[in-house]
């Protein structure tokens, strides 16, 4: 099955990836090749088989929702240090992004 150029462009938009024309062309072939390969699974009968999302059988793992004061042993990282990871302007401890609306 060969993906169309429009399909590749649509997926790139869904994934928020800005691709060049050359990339779109390349991925059209390569993605089709990968999808052809995984078609192999169609020969496996899976009626009545439960899907596996994780392998060790854990469910609903909870922990206490505690506020860790900055600098305490439980505090993982300083909020300002985390904000500093952003390349954008910070205003009143918020990241200023381009207009959404």
């Amino acid at each position, binding site marked *: 099955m060969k*993906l169309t150029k429009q*399909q*590749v462009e649509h*997926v*790139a938009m*869904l*994934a*928020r*990836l*800005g*691709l*060049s024309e050359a*990339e779109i062309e390349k*991925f059209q072939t*390569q*993605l089709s*090749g*990968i*999808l052809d*390969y*995984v*078609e*192999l*699974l*169609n020969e*496996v009968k*899976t009626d009545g*088989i*439960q*899907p*596996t*999302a*994780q*392998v*060790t059988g*854990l469910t609903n*793992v909870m*922990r206490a929702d505690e506020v860790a004061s900055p600098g305490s042993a439980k505090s*993982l*990282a*300083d909020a300002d*240090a*985390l904000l*500093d*990871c*952003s*390349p*954008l302007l910070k205003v009143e401890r918020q*990241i200023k*992004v*381009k*207009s*959404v*609306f």
Partner: protein
Amino acid sequence: MSLASLTIHEAAEGLRAKKFSAVELTAYCLERIKKLEPKLKSYTLVTGELALQQARELESRIRSQESSPLCGIPMALKDVFCTSGVRTTACSNILKNFVPPYDATTVKKLKSAGMVLLGKTNTDEFTCGGSTETSCFGVTRNPWDLERVAGGSSGGSAAAVAADECIYALGTDTGGSIRQPSAFCGLTGLKVTYGRVSRFGVISMASSLDTVGPIAKDVQDIALIMNEIAGADAYDSTTPQVAVPNYLEGLDAKDLKGMKIGLPKEYFIPGMDPEVEKAVRTALEELKKLGAEVKEISLPHTKYGLAVYYIICPSEVSANMARYDGIRYGPGPLKESRSKKQESRKAGDELMEYYLRSRGEGFGDEVKRRIMIGTYVLSAGYYDAYYLKAQKVRTLVKQDFEKAFEDVDVIITPTTPTPAFKVGQNTADPVKMYLEDVFTVSINIAGVPALAVPCGFSSGERTARARSERGSGSASPSDAELTKKVLPIGMQIIGPQFGEPTLLKVGSAFQKATDWHKKKPKL
């Protein structure tokens, strides 16, 4: 022989006997790094000053009664482990200037054991790959043959350990990324049971498959590292509350009497390198001599492992990579904005363009491919046919192993179908590159542990011939391919979930009877 070629246990003994100091040991490793890095490119960052400072501070602690065997031992971390204040990039342009404000749990644990951090090692971008060729820092070379890859994605960690640029390293394994580079570089590497070691603070690739584990020079070192890093973590909800054993116990076993080893017929396939098969079969004879019983078994869904992997892994990659939007992490778009007519712009266009450009420029080809595949198979209308189907076949692959372990204690296979391939050989065709993972991915799909141990060598000549017979190499091997460089071969020992102690017992008995793990590349 330089100090840097020591194992952890040898170095720990030397430090305690005051044969050398932690600073001297660290300086030796840094000397090796300085000498070899221009050839190998194992490291993305060398933290020499920090390492020497850490070593100095640890000197007095090493000789205290309760100090860890890892105290004062210089090591390296794959560049996906968050290290507070030390740059961590995942070898991606999108994280190239990321300095984490916190430590991964494993880093925290190793720091309290007395880690000396030499630096961060190269990996495929976001660990997506099997050759360390997709890193934004360039390709890591195999210390056994500089024209070949070190494997991947933990190729930098493996090359650094093999070349004695550190005593041990940590890596991650999502589809073979610890075992395959260990095999390619002649090392011992452990892919742990899913959840045995915390993933907190380790940059995610595919969250239901990712594991953290050690790459080292022998099984005893693996056990020493596991004793420090294994265990449940409140910050990683996928780490089960399973008691952590002393991984050194059982390593003294002189024989393997009563041990049942399964040999899955599906892993001895036509087209695999005859020298790989021969080395593994010879190793099995060795294990029989030690008293183990070997029987043929079947893992009937083996054939589908890779297809399951290349649906589930990209799906999880596409979800995990969504956080790199150029807003929470840098650097944002770097190139000049594409010219667009201002009047046609709607509100929000600028933000969309910011995302598209940050991500389009920030990610490399293989990560983009996986994001695209994942987005496609998870999109409306395709989810059931691809993702749900793969999750169901995942159940069958997992059940294959569960059934097999009702009958045998461990399963042994080659780690890879061939020894290290040449740089550039598989980069043009993604499916061909993916096929290199054929023996390792099912283990991640089932969440079971597997230990890679060196079990022999192949001559470059034979390898070239085997490749051209499979149709995956050039029809006539080039002169370079005919040069007689020996390449390590690895054997994979697989166990049931949380069966790491049994794997280490088998691996240790094998290493007591053989000396493959002691061979060093000539550099």
